[in-house]
């Protein structure tokens, strides 16, 4: 017998299953009728290309639950999801689970497009959402969802959160303004070019007037359409009696503009329309980049929402007989309701288990891949998946108070807090603005007595020269450069304060499992009783474990697969929760699992020397009287751990391991990596306490972790780094995501943080010196506004170029 793999979902097909289809004149096998139906459907719809394009495996069909889609056709419910547009068409956004690569959305798009009644479909791969415009008279919403289900994906309607919609509108508006100012500035620079070479007398009055007129129109147009934000901000800050950079920006814009208008009417050459336009363009550009970063963070936060569903089945019963069963929107569920969760469904709300035992997959929240066993009266977090037995649940809280909703609210608040160094420079510049305004006042008095006609020129020069643009740019541009270069290598910074904190980190704390080690098991050692033939034992274990979906079982199907396998027929196969598996092969009963599970089954003798059983995981294979084999599984260290740790040591940082794992393996790992400080069996509170103690002694802490139990520690450490494999929740509460799980990047990031710090300091020093000297010279009336504009742009450019050096490293 050889191994067969399902053509659709790439799962290994069990021995006794014989389902096949003839595709491209070849026989292809499937694991279940669900997959067969889907393949047939896809091929019949002439969408078979999907199987050529796809890069990753899709979800097994049997794991997708059959939802009751008809609920979405009810009048009051459909109104929540569907909006009517012009032409009597309806628009709906659908969230699709199970999209893994671009072939998936190719398939969905081509299939949905071919349905009568569908007008348009757009799929966004990164958010897994599809926007569909359809005719409600021809096709029902439930039929659309059903069609997506037919090709193997689970879909449900989605309502955009207000913040997402607002972000989208803001993005579009800012993009429009940026485009206008870019095109406008290009035009105006072309038109003004001649004035840099010739003056009024050379050009001739009629041409001069004509070109200047168009300059005037473009500048006016740009100020009206693009500068409203600065002016509004300035107005607001005036109301609050503070000075911001926007105050001085708006003042400069208006002064330069009106002076130019005045000189234009008097046919004088001191006209600076082009300067105003470039000024606006550069300001908009830097703010646009900043906005993109902000929006990216909100998107990350809302990806948490994917975990929850919006419909739940409510039951009513008396004396254990279900008398009524209906669907309800999750927002409307009351605490008095009783929820029923089918196998494979997402648990809609936090709740207490009322039914008997069940197993849930909490991996999307805790990162723990091993399913968790829950018994009656246990607490379940909304968002996990029910794997076995029908689950009956009593809600613990309303949806608006549920665990995930609250986390999202906290994160929303946090994402709007600005990094400290940006706040400091803003503060410095607001003092600076005050100084500028005061000195302008004195300059005006001075010039009033000396040369009345020069007042306006001096004022404008001072305002422009002293505009702390370079100061305002100095920090954000350096941070943007480093952020980009680090993101390219896989160190994705989510919160902006990271770069300034990186340079003064003193202590680095690692979680163990999933951080220093990988988060899956690998077979390290095997011991087989001398009575048995090795390949026979392997085949026995393989045949037993291949039937289970448990992550530990997968270790066997992966590791033993290389040695030409023969699969035996397993009869009476049974899986024991939290213990192991059992089955009859060739008339003999075998068990495979934990020691306690084997104990009740056969006697344990001391013939096996139980290597270092204190730590790590051991799986036993036995028949009804003796142990046949012991498999020793470990979490191996990550490939990058050694080098990464050594690099960090070169930077003179204190390293710690802080883990919840009580086993001996922590000692081994810390010895291996030569890390002095380690603390095992640490609860969440212990972790907090440990970090707080270090911080009391002045330590600045970088915490690297991957799971739910690190989240609180993340919050109090200066920099929280989540591994790329960690849960969405951990990623969102962290400041940095290590996309490729490469620990070497930590030292690289710290080095680049120190370098960035240096560049920022250079920038600030330059900006301050320039501004003070410029202010002084313009006070004396030695600078024309025209040169002031060049000077200002030059100083900003210098700051930008200095920061661009960061991109080289």
């Amino acid at each position, binding site marked *: 017998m050889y191994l067969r793999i399902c053509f659709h979902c790439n799962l290994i097909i069990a021995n006794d299953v014989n389902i096949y289809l003839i595709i491209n004149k070849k026989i292809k096998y499937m694991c279940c009728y669900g997959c067969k139906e889907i393949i047939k459907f896809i091929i019949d719809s002439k969408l078979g290309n999907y199987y050529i394009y796809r890069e990753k495996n899709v979800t097994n069909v049997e794991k997708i639950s059959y939802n009751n889609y008809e609920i979405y056709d009810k009048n009051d419910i459909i109104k929540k999801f569907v909006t009517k547009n012009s032409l009597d068409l309806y628009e709906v956004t659908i969230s699709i689970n199970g999209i893994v690569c671009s072939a998936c959305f190719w398939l969905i798009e081509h299939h949905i497009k071919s349905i009568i009644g569908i007008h348009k479909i757009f799929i966004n791969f*990164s958010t897994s959402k599809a926007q569909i415009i359809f005719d409600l008279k021809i096709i029902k919403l439930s039929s659309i969802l059903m069609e997506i289900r037919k090709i193997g994906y689970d879909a449900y309607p989605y309502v955009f959160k207000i913040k997402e919609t607002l972000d989208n509108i803001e993005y*579009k508006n800012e993009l429009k303004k940026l485009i206008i100012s870019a095109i406008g500035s290009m035009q105006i620079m072309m038109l003004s070019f001649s004035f840099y070479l010739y003056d009024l007398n050379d050009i001739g009055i009629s041409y001069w007037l004509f070109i200047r007129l168009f300059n005037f129109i473009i500048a006016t147009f740009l100020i009206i359409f693009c500068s409203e934000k600065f002016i509004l901000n300035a107005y607001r800050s005036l109301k609050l009696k503070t000075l911001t950079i926007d105050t001085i920006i708006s003042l400069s814009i208006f002064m330069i503009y009106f002076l130019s208008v005045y000189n234009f009417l008097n046919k004088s050459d001191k006209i600076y329309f082009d300067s105003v336009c470039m000024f606006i363009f550069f300001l908009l550009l830097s703010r646009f980049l900043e906005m993109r970063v902000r929006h990216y963070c909100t998107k990350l936060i809302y990806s948490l929402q994917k975990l929850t569903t919006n419909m739940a089945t409510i039951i009513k019963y008396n004396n254990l007989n279900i008398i009524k069963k209906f669907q309800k929107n999750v927002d409307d569920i009351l605490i008095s309701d009783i929820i029923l969760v089918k196998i494979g469904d997402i648990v809609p709300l936090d709740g207490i288990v009322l039914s008997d035992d069940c197993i849930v997959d909490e991996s999307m929240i805790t990162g723990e891949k091993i399913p968790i066993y829950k018994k009656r009266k246990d607490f379940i977090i909304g968002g996990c998946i029910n794997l076995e037995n029908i689950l009956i649940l009593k809600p613990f809280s309303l949806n608006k108070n549920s665990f995930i909703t609250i986390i999202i609210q906290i994160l929303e608040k946090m994402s709007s807090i600005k990094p400290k160094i940006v706040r400091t420079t803003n503060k410095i510049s607001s003092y600076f603005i005050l100084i500028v305004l005061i000195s302008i006042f004195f300059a005006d008095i001075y010039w009033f007595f000396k040369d009345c006609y020069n007042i306006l020129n001096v004022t404008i020069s001072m305002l422009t020269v002293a505009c702390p643009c370079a100061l305002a740019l100095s920090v954000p541009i350096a941070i943007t450069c480093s952020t980009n270069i680090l993101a390219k290598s896989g160190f994705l910074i989510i919160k902006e304060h990271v770069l300034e904190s990186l340079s003064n980190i003193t202590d680095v704390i690692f979680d163990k499992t999933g951080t220093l080690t990988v988060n899956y098991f690998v077979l390290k050692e095997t011991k087989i009783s001398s009575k048995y033939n090795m390949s026979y034992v392997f085949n026995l274990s393989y045949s037993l474990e291949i039937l289970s979906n448990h992550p530990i079982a997968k270790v066997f199907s992966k590791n033993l697969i290389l040695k030409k396998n023969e699969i035996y027929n397993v009869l009476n196969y049974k899986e024991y929760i939290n213990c192991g598996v059992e089955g009859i092969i060739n008339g003999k009963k075998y068990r495979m699992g934990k020691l306690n599970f084997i104990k009740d089954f056969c006697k344990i003798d001391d013939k096996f020397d139980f290597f270092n059983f204190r730590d790590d995981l051991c799986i036993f294979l036995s028949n009804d009287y003796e142990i046949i084999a012991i498999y020793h599984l470990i979490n191996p260290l990550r490939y990058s751990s050694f080098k990464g740790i050594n690099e960090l040591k070169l930077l003179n940082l204190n390293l710690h391991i802080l883990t919840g794992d009580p086993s001996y393996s922590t000692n081994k790992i810390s010895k291996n990596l030569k890390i002095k400080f380690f603390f095992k069996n640490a609860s969440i509170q212990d972790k907090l306490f440990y970090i707080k103690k270090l911080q009391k002694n002045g330590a600045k802490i970088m915490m690297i972790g991957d799971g739910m139990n690190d989240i609180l520690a993340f919050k109090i450490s200066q920099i929280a780094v989540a591994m790329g494999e960690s849960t969405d929740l951990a990623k969102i509460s962290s400041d940095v995501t290590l996309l490729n799980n490469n620990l070497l990047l930590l030292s690289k990031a710290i080095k680049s943080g120190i370098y960035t710090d240096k560049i920022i300091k250079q920038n600030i020093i330059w900006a301050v010196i320039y501004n003070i000297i410029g202010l002084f010279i313009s006070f004396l009336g030695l600078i024309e506004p025209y040169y002031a504009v060049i000077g200002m742009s030059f100083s900003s450019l210098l700051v930008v170029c200095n920061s661009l050096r960061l991109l080289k490293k």
Partner: protein
Amino acid sequence: MSIIFFLIPFSFILMFLAIYFFWWAVDNDQFDNLDDISKYILLNDDLFEK
């Protein structure tokens, strides 16, 4: 040189046309998703025969 009396207004019209088309593109969600659309072109429709 008097040609500029024609060329400048003409470039002006082009500028507004450019702005108009950019606006139109933004309003039609052309800039919403800059990552995935590029993949579409790689997907042909006729590689697979039944």
